[in-house]
Protein backbone atom coordinates (compact mmCIF):
# COMPACT_ATOMS: atom_id res chain seq x y z
CA UNK A 1 0.00 0.00 0.00
CA UNK A 2 1.32 3.42 -0.87
CA UNK A 3 2.13 5.59 2.10
CA UNK A 4 -0.03 8.64 2.71
CA UNK A 5 1.73 11.97 2.44
CA UNK A 6 1.32 15.08 4.54
CA UNK A 7 1.39 18.71 3.42
CA UNK A 8 5.10 18.95 4.18
CA UNK A 9 6.05 15.71 2.37
CA UNK A 10 7.99 17.47 -0.39
CA UNK A 11 10.41 18.85 2.22
CA UNK A 12 10.76 15.48 3.99
CA UNK A 13 11.55 13.71 0.72
CA UNK A 14 14.30 16.22 -0.09
CA UNK A 15 15.86 16.53 3.35
CA UNK A 16 14.75 13.72 5.67
CA UNK A 17 14.98 10.00 6.24
CA UNK A 18 11.48 8.75 5.66
CA UNK A 19 9.78 5.85 7.46
CA UNK A 20 6.29 4.39 7.52
CA UNK A 21 4.59 5.81 10.60
CA UNK A 22 1.05 4.47 10.89
CA UNK A 23 0.70 4.51 7.11
CA UNK A 24 2.19 7.99 6.67
CA UNK A 25 5.51 8.77 5.03
CA UNK A 26 7.17 10.72 7.85
CA UNK A 27 10.76 11.82 8.54
CA UNK A 28 12.42 10.01 11.43
CA UNK A 29 15.30 12.50 11.33
CA UNK A 30 16.93 15.08 9.07
CA UNK A 31 20.44 15.66 10.45
CA UNK A 32 20.28 13.43 13.52
CA UNK A 33 17.96 12.61 16.40
CA UNK A 34 20.24 13.86 19.17
CA UNK A 35 20.98 17.22 17.55
CA UNK A 36 17.27 17.73 16.84
CA UNK A 37 16.43 16.77 20.41
CA UNK A 38 18.92 19.32 21.74
CA UNK A 39 17.61 22.01 19.40
CA UNK A 40 14.21 21.73 21.07
CA UNK A 41 15.56 21.68 24.66
CA UNK A 42 17.86 24.64 23.98
CA UNK A 43 16.42 26.63 21.08
CA UNK A 44 13.56 25.98 18.71
CA UNK A 45 12.62 22.98 16.59
CA UNK A 46 9.72 22.41 14.24
CA UNK A 47 7.84 19.19 13.53
CA UNK A 48 5.37 18.35 10.80
CA UNK A 49 2.37 17.00 12.71
CA UNK A 50 -0.04 17.19 9.79
CA UNK A 51 -0.64 13.45 10.06
CA UNK A 52 -2.63 14.09 13.25
CA UNK A 53 -6.42 14.19 13.29
CA UNK A 54 -8.34 17.48 13.31
CA UNK A 55 -12.11 17.73 13.44
CA UNK A 56 -14.44 20.68 13.87
CA UNK A 57 -17.41 20.06 16.16
CA UNK A 58 -20.14 22.62 15.64
CA UNK A 59 -23.72 23.12 16.72
CA UNK A 60 -25.91 23.98 19.71
CA UNK A 61 -25.12 20.72 21.56
CA UNK A 62 -21.34 20.79 21.09
CA UNK A 63 -20.48 21.23 24.79
CA UNK A 64 -22.95 18.57 25.89
CA UNK A 65 -21.69 16.19 23.20
CA UNK A 66 -18.01 16.65 24.04
CA UNK A 67 -18.71 16.28 27.75
CA UNK A 68 -20.43 12.97 26.99
CA UNK A 69 -17.52 11.91 24.77
CA UNK A 70 -14.51 12.79 26.96
CA UNK A 71 -13.65 12.37 30.64
CA UNK A 72 -12.57 15.95 31.38
CA UNK A 73 -15.03 18.82 31.90
CA UNK A 74 -15.33 20.74 28.66
CA UNK A 75 -18.01 23.03 30.11
CA UNK A 76 -15.32 24.75 32.18
CA UNK A 77 -13.63 26.10 29.04
CA UNK A 78 -13.75 29.74 28.04
CA UNK A 79 -13.43 30.85 24.42
CA UNK A 80 -9.89 30.21 23.09
CA UNK A 81 -9.18 27.75 25.91
CA UNK A 82 -7.89 24.22 25.34
CA UNK A 83 -8.30 21.08 27.42
CA UNK A 84 -6.39 17.77 27.43
CA UNK A 85 -8.57 14.74 27.93
CA UNK A 86 -9.16 11.13 27.04
CA UNK A 87 -12.19 9.45 25.57
CA UNK A 88 -13.05 5.99 26.84
CA UNK A 89 -15.01 2.91 25.86
CA UNK A 90 -17.99 2.07 28.08
CA UNK A 91 -15.63 -0.37 29.88
CA UNK A 92 -13.20 2.44 30.69
CA UNK A 93 -10.48 1.55 28.15
CA UNK A 94 -8.90 4.54 26.42
CA UNK A 95 -10.02 5.14 22.82
CA UNK A 96 -7.55 8.01 22.49
CA UNK A 97 -6.13 11.08 24.17
CA UNK A 98 -7.00 14.41 22.61
CA UNK A 99 -7.20 18.18 23.01
CA UNK A 100 -10.40 20.15 22.56
CA UNK A 101 -10.20 23.90 21.86
CA UNK A 102 -13.24 26.13 22.33
CA UNK A 103 -13.82 29.04 19.95
CA UNK A 104 -17.45 29.56 20.91
CA UNK A 105 -19.72 27.26 22.94
CA UNK A 106 -20.99 26.07 19.55
CA UNK A 107 -17.64 25.63 17.80
CA UNK A 108 -14.73 23.47 18.95
CA UNK A 109 -11.60 22.09 17.33
CA UNK A 110 -10.75 18.53 18.36
CA UNK A 111 -7.16 17.30 17.82
CA UNK A 112 -6.22 13.62 18.18
CA UNK A 113 -3.59 11.03 17.24
CA UNK A 114 -2.51 10.22 13.68
CA UNK A 115 -2.76 6.47 14.15
CA UNK A 116 -6.36 6.80 15.35
CA UNK A 117 -7.70 9.20 12.72
CA UNK A 118 -10.27 6.84 11.21
CA UNK A 119 -11.17 5.11 14.46
CA UNK A 120 -11.67 8.34 16.38
CA UNK A 121 -13.76 10.05 13.74
CA UNK A 122 -16.04 7.01 13.51
CA UNK A 123 -16.25 6.86 17.30
CA UNK A 124 -17.17 10.54 17.56
CA UNK A 125 -19.68 10.24 14.73
CA UNK A 126 -21.32 7.18 16.24
CA UNK A 127 -21.66 8.82 19.65
CA UNK A 128 -22.94 12.14 18.27
CA UNK A 129 -26.26 10.78 17.04
CA UNK A 130 -28.35 12.07 19.96
CA UNK A 131 -26.81 15.55 19.81
CA UNK A 132 -27.23 18.52 17.53
CA UNK A 133 -23.61 18.65 16.51
CA UNK A 134 -21.93 18.57 13.12
CA UNK A 135 -18.52 16.89 12.83
CA UNK A 136 -16.20 17.84 9.99
CA UNK A 137 -12.88 16.04 9.57
CA UNK A 138 -10.47 18.69 8.27
CA UNK A 139 -7.24 16.73 8.74
CA UNK A 140 -6.51 16.88 5.01
CA UNK A 141 -7.57 20.51 4.65
CA UNK A 142 -5.52 22.00 7.49
CA UNK A 143 -1.79 21.53 7.97
CA UNK A 144 -0.25 21.31 11.43
CA UNK A 145 3.28 22.31 12.46
CA UNK A 146 4.60 22.15 16.03
CA UNK A 147 7.04 24.94 16.95
CA UNK A 148 8.76 23.89 20.18
CA UNK A 149 11.50 25.03 22.51
CA UNK A 150 12.53 27.88 24.82
CA UNK A 151 12.99 30.10 21.74
CA UNK A 152 9.64 29.15 20.13
CA UNK A 153 8.03 32.50 20.97
CA UNK A 154 10.99 34.40 19.53
CA UNK A 155 11.03 32.34 16.32
CA UNK A 156 7.28 32.34 15.69
CA UNK A 157 7.06 36.08 16.46
CA UNK A 158 9.50 36.92 13.65
CA UNK A 159 6.97 35.77 11.05
CA UNK A 160 3.68 36.48 12.84
CA UNK A 161 1.69 39.71 12.72
CA UNK A 162 -0.01 39.36 16.11
CA UNK A 163 1.74 39.21 19.51
CA UNK A 164 2.11 35.45 20.05
CA UNK A 165 3.30 35.84 23.65
CA UNK A 166 -0.27 36.88 24.50
CA UNK A 167 -1.50 33.37 23.79
CA UNK A 168 -1.38 31.69 27.20
CA UNK A 169 -0.43 28.08 27.85
CA UNK A 170 -3.19 25.70 26.68
CA UNK A 171 -4.93 28.50 24.80
CA UNK A 172 -5.34 29.09 21.09
CA UNK A 173 -5.34 32.26 19.00
CA UNK A 174 -6.07 33.39 15.46
CA UNK A 175 -2.84 34.55 13.86
CA UNK A 176 -1.25 35.36 10.51
CA UNK A 177 1.97 33.39 10.07
CA UNK A 178 4.11 34.01 7.01
CA UNK A 179 1.17 35.87 5.52
CA UNK A 180 -1.19 32.89 5.91
CA UNK A 181 -4.26 32.56 8.12
CA UNK A 182 -3.48 30.19 10.98
CA UNK A 183 -4.43 29.16 14.47
CA UNK A 184 -1.68 28.87 17.07
CA UNK A 185 -2.18 26.82 20.24
CA UNK A 186 0.31 27.13 23.11
CA UNK A 187 0.62 23.35 23.43
CA UNK A 188 2.99 20.60 22.37
CA UNK A 189 4.42 17.16 22.95
CA UNK A 190 7.95 17.95 24.07
CA UNK A 191 7.62 19.38 27.58
CA UNK A 192 8.90 22.72 26.27
CA UNK A 193 7.15 26.00 25.67
CA UNK A 194 5.86 26.33 22.15
CA UNK A 195 2.98 26.25 19.73
CA UNK A 196 1.05 23.97 17.49
CA UNK A 197 0.29 26.01 14.38
CA UNK A 198 -2.68 25.06 12.21
CA UNK A 199 -2.39 26.38 8.66
CA UNK A 200 -6.01 26.92 7.60
CA UNK A 201 -7.41 26.36 4.15
CA UNK A 202 -4.39 24.33 3.05
CA UNK A 203 -5.42 21.15 1.22
CA UNK A 204 -2.91 18.30 1.28
CA UNK A 205 -2.95 18.05 -2.53
CA UNK A 206 -2.20 21.75 -2.85
CA UNK A 207 0.16 22.32 0.07
CA UNK A 208 1.70 25.64 -1.00
CA UNK A 209 0.51 27.58 2.04
CA UNK A 210 1.70 24.91 4.48
CA UNK A 211 5.11 24.71 2.81
CA UNK A 212 5.35 28.49 2.82
CA UNK A 213 4.78 28.59 6.59
CA UNK A 214 7.27 25.72 7.09
CA UNK A 215 9.91 27.56 5.04
CA UNK A 216 9.23 30.81 6.88
CA UNK A 217 9.79 29.02 10.20
CA UNK A 218 13.10 27.61 8.92
CA UNK A 219 14.04 31.10 7.77
CA UNK A 220 13.25 32.42 11.24
CA UNK A 221 15.82 30.03 12.71
CA UNK A 222 13.86 26.87 13.58
CA UNK A 223 15.58 23.49 13.25
CA UNK A 224 13.56 20.84 11.37
CA UNK A 225 12.97 17.81 13.60
CA UNK A 226 11.73 14.31 12.84
CA UNK A 227 9.71 11.71 14.69
CA UNK A 228 12.82 10.30 16.40
CA UNK A 229 13.35 13.47 18.41
CA UNK A 230 9.61 13.86 18.88
CA UNK A 231 9.60 10.47 20.62
CA UNK A 232 12.68 11.05 22.79
CA UNK A 233 11.40 14.50 23.81
CA UNK A 234 7.93 13.30 24.78
CA UNK A 235 9.47 10.40 26.70
CA UNK A 236 11.66 12.74 28.77
CA UNK A 237 8.56 14.81 29.47
CA UNK A 238 6.77 11.61 30.57
CA UNK A 239 3.98 12.08 28.04
CA UNK A 240 1.88 9.13 26.89
CA UNK A 241 2.17 7.63 23.43
CA UNK A 242 -1.05 6.03 22.30
CA UNK A 243 -0.44 2.42 21.30
CA UNK A 244 2.54 2.15 23.68
CA UNK A 245 1.58 3.62 27.05
CA UNK A 246 -2.18 3.79 26.67
CA UNK A 247 -4.69 1.82 24.63
CA UNK A 248 -8.14 0.28 24.90
CA UNK A 249 -6.96 -2.25 27.50
CA UNK A 250 -5.84 0.51 29.89
CA UNK A 251 -8.07 2.89 31.83
CA UNK A 252 -7.09 6.46 32.73
CA UNK A 253 -6.81 5.67 36.46
CA UNK A 254 -4.08 3.12 35.70
CA UNK A 255 -2.34 5.44 33.25
CA UNK A 256 -1.84 8.30 35.73
CA UNK A 257 -4.61 10.23 33.99
CA UNK A 258 -6.96 10.38 36.96
CA UNK A 259 -6.68 14.19 36.78
CA UNK A 260 -8.46 14.19 33.42
CA UNK A 261 -11.48 12.29 34.79
CA UNK A 262 -14.09 14.65 36.26
CA UNK A 263 -16.58 12.32 37.95
CA UNK A 264 -18.60 15.23 39.32
CA UNK A 265 -19.21 17.08 36.06
CA UNK A 266 -22.76 17.51 34.81
CA UNK A 267 -24.26 14.64 32.83
CA UNK A 268 -23.05 11.12 32.05
CA UNK A 269 -19.87 10.45 30.11
CA UNK A 270 -18.89 7.29 28.28
CA UNK A 271 -17.02 4.98 30.63
CA UNK A 272 -18.16 6.77 33.79
CA UNK A 273 -19.74 3.74 35.42
CA UNK A 274 -16.74 1.48 34.78
CA UNK A 275 -14.31 4.15 35.95
CA UNK A 276 -16.28 4.77 39.15
CA UNK A 277 -16.10 1.04 39.85
CA UNK A 278 -12.38 0.99 39.12
CA UNK A 279 -11.91 3.92 41.48
CA UNK A 280 -13.75 2.09 44.28
CA UNK A 281 -11.94 -1.21 43.74
CA UNK A 282 -8.53 0.34 43.21
CA UNK A 283 -6.20 -0.36 40.31
CA UNK A 284 -4.05 -3.47 39.83
CA UNK A 285 -1.32 -1.70 37.91
CA UNK A 286 -0.06 1.82 37.62
CA UNK A 287 2.18 3.62 35.14
CA UNK A 288 5.54 4.50 36.70
CA UNK A 289 8.79 6.05 35.54
CA UNK A 290 12.00 4.04 35.79
CA UNK A 291 15.52 5.42 35.61
CA UNK A 292 18.44 3.03 35.20
CA UNK A 293 21.32 3.24 37.65
CA UNK A 294 23.63 1.18 35.45
CA UNK A 295 24.50 1.37 31.76
CA UNK A 296 21.89 0.13 29.29
CA UNK A 297 18.93 1.18 27.22
CA UNK A 298 15.51 0.03 28.41
CA UNK A 299 13.10 -0.42 25.49
CA UNK A 300 9.45 -1.13 24.72
CA UNK A 301 8.60 -4.73 25.61
CA UNK A 302 11.47 -5.39 28.03
CA UNK A 303 10.55 -7.10 31.31
CA UNK A 304 10.70 -5.36 34.68
CA UNK A 305 11.51 -7.45 37.75
CA UNK A 306 11.55 -6.90 41.49
CA UNK A 307 14.91 -7.11 43.28
CA UNK A 308 13.86 -10.68 44.17
CA UNK A 309 13.84 -11.27 40.37
CA UNK A 310 10.08 -11.80 40.18
CA UNK A 311 8.37 -10.52 36.99
CA UNK A 312 6.34 -7.44 37.84
CA UNK A 313 5.69 -5.67 34.56
CA UNK A 314 6.71 -4.66 31.07
CA UNK A 315 8.18 -1.46 29.67
CA UNK A 316 5.75 0.46 27.47
CA UNK A 317 8.17 3.21 26.35
CA UNK A 318 11.87 3.50 26.96
CA UNK A 319 15.15 4.74 25.61
CA UNK A 320 18.30 6.69 26.28
CA UNK A 321 17.47 10.19 27.50
CA UNK A 322 19.61 12.55 25.42
CA UNK A 323 19.25 15.27 28.05
CA UNK A 324 20.08 13.15 31.11
CA UNK A 325 22.31 10.65 29.26
CA UNK A 326 20.74 7.75 31.15
CA UNK A 327 18.22 5.04 30.32
CA UNK A 328 14.62 6.02 31.13
CA UNK A 329 11.39 4.09 30.76
CA UNK A 330 7.71 3.90 31.60
CA UNK A 331 6.14 0.64 32.73
CA UNK A 332 2.96 -0.66 34.32
CA UNK A 333 3.77 -2.14 37.72
CA UNK A 334 1.60 -3.33 40.62
CA UNK A 335 0.75 -0.29 42.81
CA UNK A 336 2.99 -1.49 45.66
CA UNK A 337 5.99 -0.80 43.39
CA UNK A 338 4.80 2.70 42.57
CA UNK A 339 6.56 4.49 45.42
CA UNK A 340 9.40 6.75 44.29
CA UNK A 341 12.80 5.20 44.95
CA UNK A 342 11.63 1.59 44.77
CA UNK A 343 14.49 -0.49 43.33
CA UNK A 344 13.66 -2.61 40.26
CA UNK A 345 15.54 -4.60 37.62
CA UNK A 346 15.14 -4.44 33.85
CA UNK A 347 15.98 -7.46 31.70
CA UNK A 348 18.11 -6.25 28.80
CA UNK A 349 18.95 -9.30 26.72
CA UNK A 350 20.77 -11.61 29.17
CA UNK A 351 21.50 -8.97 31.79
CA UNK A 352 19.46 -7.71 34.73
CA UNK A 353 20.14 -3.99 34.96
CA UNK A 354 19.47 -2.00 38.14
CA UNK A 355 17.04 0.89 38.14
CA UNK A 356 14.59 2.68 40.40
CA UNK A 357 11.12 4.15 40.25
CA UNK A 358 11.30 7.92 39.73
CA UNK A 359 9.06 10.90 39.11
CA UNK A 360 8.49 10.86 35.36
CA UNK A 361 6.24 13.78 34.40
CA UNK A 362 8.81 14.94 33.56
CA UNK A 363 11.98 12.89 34.13
CA UNK A 364 14.14 16.03 33.98
CA UNK A 365 14.57 18.83 36.52
CA UNK A 366 11.83 21.36 35.76
CA UNK A 367 13.88 24.29 36.98
CA UNK A 368 16.44 23.53 34.25
CA UNK A 369 14.37 22.15 31.33
CA UNK A 370 10.80 22.44 30.08
CA UNK A 371 8.23 25.21 29.81
CA UNK A 372 8.16 25.96 33.54
CA UNK A 373 11.84 26.81 33.79
CA UNK A 374 11.40 30.55 33.28
CA UNK A 375 8.75 30.76 35.95
CA UNK A 376 10.83 29.53 38.90
Amino acid at each position, binding site marked *: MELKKTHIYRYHADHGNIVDFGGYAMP*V*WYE*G*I*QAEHRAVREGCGIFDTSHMGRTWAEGPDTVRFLNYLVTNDVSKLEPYGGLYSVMCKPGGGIVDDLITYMFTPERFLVVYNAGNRDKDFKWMKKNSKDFQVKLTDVSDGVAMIAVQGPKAVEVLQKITKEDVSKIERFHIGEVTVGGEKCLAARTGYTGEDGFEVFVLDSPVDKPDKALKVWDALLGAGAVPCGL*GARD*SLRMEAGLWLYGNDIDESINPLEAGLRWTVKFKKEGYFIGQKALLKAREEGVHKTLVGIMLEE*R*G*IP*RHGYEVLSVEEKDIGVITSG*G*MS*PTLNVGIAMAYLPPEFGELGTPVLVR*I*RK*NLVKGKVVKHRPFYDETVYGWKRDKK
Partner: protein
Amino acid sequence: MTDEYKVEDGLYYTKEHEWAKKLGGSMVAVGIDDYAQGQLHEIVYVELPSVDAEVAQGAALGAVESVKAVSDMYSPVGGKVVEVNEALLDSPEKINEDPYGEGWIAKLESGSLDADLGKLMDAKAYRAFLKSL
Protein backbone atom coordinates in the same frame (compact mmCIF):
# COMPACT_ATOMS: atom_id res chain seq x y z
CA MET B 1 23.54 3.91 -2.62
CA THR B 2 25.96 1.41 -1.09
CA ASP B 3 28.93 2.99 -2.89
CA GLU B 4 29.04 5.71 -0.28
CA TYR B 5 30.24 3.26 2.40
CA LYS B 6 33.93 2.73 3.01
CA VAL B 7 35.25 -0.82 2.72
CA GLU B 8 38.80 -1.10 3.98
CA ASP B 9 41.24 -3.30 2.11
CA GLY B 10 42.94 -6.11 4.01
CA LEU B 11 40.00 -6.82 6.31
CA TYR B 12 37.55 -9.73 6.25
CA TYR B 13 33.79 -9.14 6.25
CA THR B 14 30.57 -10.98 7.14
CA LYS B 15 27.14 -10.70 5.55
CA GLU B 16 25.95 -9.23 8.85
CA HIS B 17 28.42 -6.36 8.33
CA GLU B 18 31.08 -7.20 10.90
CA TRP B 19 34.77 -7.02 10.10
CA ALA B 20 37.85 -8.89 11.32
CA LYS B 21 41.44 -7.73 11.05
CA LYS B 22 44.53 -9.91 11.53
CA LEU B 23 46.82 -8.49 14.19
CA GLY B 24 49.57 -11.10 13.90
CA GLY B 25 49.80 -14.60 15.32
CA SER B 26 46.41 -15.87 16.41
CA MET B 27 45.17 -12.38 17.35
CA VAL B 28 42.33 -10.63 15.56
CA ALA B 29 40.39 -7.37 16.08
CA VAL B 30 36.68 -7.24 15.30
CA GLY B 31 34.08 -4.54 14.86
CA ILE B 32 31.12 -3.45 12.76
CA ASP B 33 31.68 -1.90 9.36
CA ASP B 34 30.90 1.46 7.82
CA TYR B 35 27.68 0.17 6.28
CA ALA B 36 26.39 -1.11 9.65
CA GLN B 37 27.21 2.11 11.48
CA GLY B 38 25.60 4.11 8.68
CA GLN B 39 22.41 2.06 8.89
CA LEU B 40 22.23 2.45 12.66
CA HIS B 41 23.17 6.14 12.50
CA GLU B 42 23.82 7.73 15.90
CA ILE B 43 25.18 4.94 18.11
CA VAL B 44 24.47 5.66 21.77
CA TYR B 45 25.34 2.42 23.51
CA VAL B 46 27.53 -0.64 23.07
CA GLU B 47 27.17 -3.85 25.03
CA LEU B 48 30.66 -5.34 25.12
CA PRO B 49 31.48 -9.02 25.63
CA SER B 50 33.25 -10.13 28.79
CA VAL B 51 37.00 -10.59 28.66
CA ASP B 52 37.85 -14.32 28.66
CA ALA B 53 34.47 -15.24 27.13
CA GLU B 54 34.69 -18.03 24.56
CA VAL B 55 32.66 -17.39 21.43
CA ALA B 56 32.00 -19.51 18.38
CA GLN B 57 32.16 -18.05 14.88
CA GLY B 58 28.78 -16.43 14.19
CA ALA B 59 27.74 -16.43 17.88
CA ALA B 60 26.48 -13.30 19.64
CA LEU B 61 29.36 -11.12 20.78
CA GLY B 62 27.50 -8.04 21.97
CA ALA B 63 25.07 -5.41 20.82
CA VAL B 64 25.25 -1.97 19.30
CA GLU B 65 22.36 0.40 19.90
CA SER B 66 21.28 3.61 18.23
CA VAL B 67 18.55 5.90 19.55
CA LYS B 68 15.91 3.90 17.70
CA ALA B 69 17.33 0.41 17.20
CA VAL B 70 19.28 -2.47 18.70
CA SER B 71 21.62 -4.47 16.50
CA ASP B 72 23.16 -7.70 17.72
CA MET B 73 26.77 -8.18 16.82
CA TYR B 74 27.98 -11.66 15.83
CA SER B 75 31.59 -12.71 16.12
CA PRO B 76 33.21 -13.00 12.69
CA VAL B 77 35.63 -15.60 14.07
CA GLY B 78 35.61 -18.10 16.90
CA GLY B 79 37.94 -17.65 19.86
CA LYS B 80 38.53 -16.18 23.29
CA VAL B 81 37.95 -12.50 24.03
CA VAL B 82 41.23 -11.05 25.29
CA GLU B 83 40.47 -7.33 25.23
CA VAL B 84 37.40 -5.12 24.80
CA ASN B 85 37.32 -1.47 23.75
CA GLU B 86 36.16 0.10 27.00
CA ALA B 87 36.49 3.59 25.53
CA LEU B 88 33.26 2.83 23.66
CA LEU B 89 31.29 2.81 26.92
CA ASP B 90 31.76 6.55 27.26
CA SER B 91 32.16 7.34 23.56
CA PRO B 92 30.06 4.90 21.53
CA GLU B 93 30.00 7.48 18.71
CA LYS B 94 33.60 6.41 17.89
CA ILE B 95 31.99 3.56 15.95
CA ASN B 96 30.21 6.10 13.75
CA GLU B 97 33.31 8.21 13.34
CA ASP B 98 35.94 5.53 12.80
CA PRO B 99 34.41 2.04 12.50
CA TYR B 100 37.65 0.32 11.38
CA GLY B 101 39.96 2.20 13.78
CA GLU B 102 38.98 3.65 17.14
CA GLY B 103 35.60 1.97 16.84
CA TRP B 104 36.98 -1.57 17.19
CA ILE B 105 34.89 -3.61 19.60
CA ALA B 106 37.00 -6.55 20.79
CA LYS B 107 40.24 -8.43 20.27
CA LEU B 108 40.11 -12.20 20.16
CA GLU B 109 42.64 -14.99 20.24
CA SER B 110 41.55 -17.60 17.74
CA GLY B 111 42.75 -21.16 17.42
CA SER B 112 41.03 -21.52 14.06
CA LEU B 113 41.82 -18.13 12.58
CA ASP B 114 42.74 -19.04 9.01
CA ALA B 115 39.83 -21.48 8.66
CA ASP B 116 37.37 -18.94 10.08
CA LEU B 117 38.68 -16.07 7.95
CA GLY B 118 38.44 -18.35 4.94
CA LYS B 119 34.68 -18.37 5.35
CA LEU B 120 34.47 -14.56 5.23
CA MET B 121 34.58 -12.13 2.32
CA ASP B 122 37.62 -10.08 1.41
CA ALA B 123 37.21 -6.37 0.60
CA LYS B 124 36.62 -6.99 -3.09
CA ALA B 125 33.97 -9.63 -2.53
CA TYR B 126 32.36 -7.52 0.17
CA ARG B 127 32.12 -4.48 -2.11
CA ALA B 128 30.31 -6.65 -4.63
CA PHE B 129 28.04 -7.95 -1.84
CA LEU B 130 27.14 -4.39 -0.73
CA LYS B 131 26.27 -3.49 -4.33
CA SER B 132 23.85 -6.41 -4.43
CA LEU B 133 21.87 -5.11 -1.41
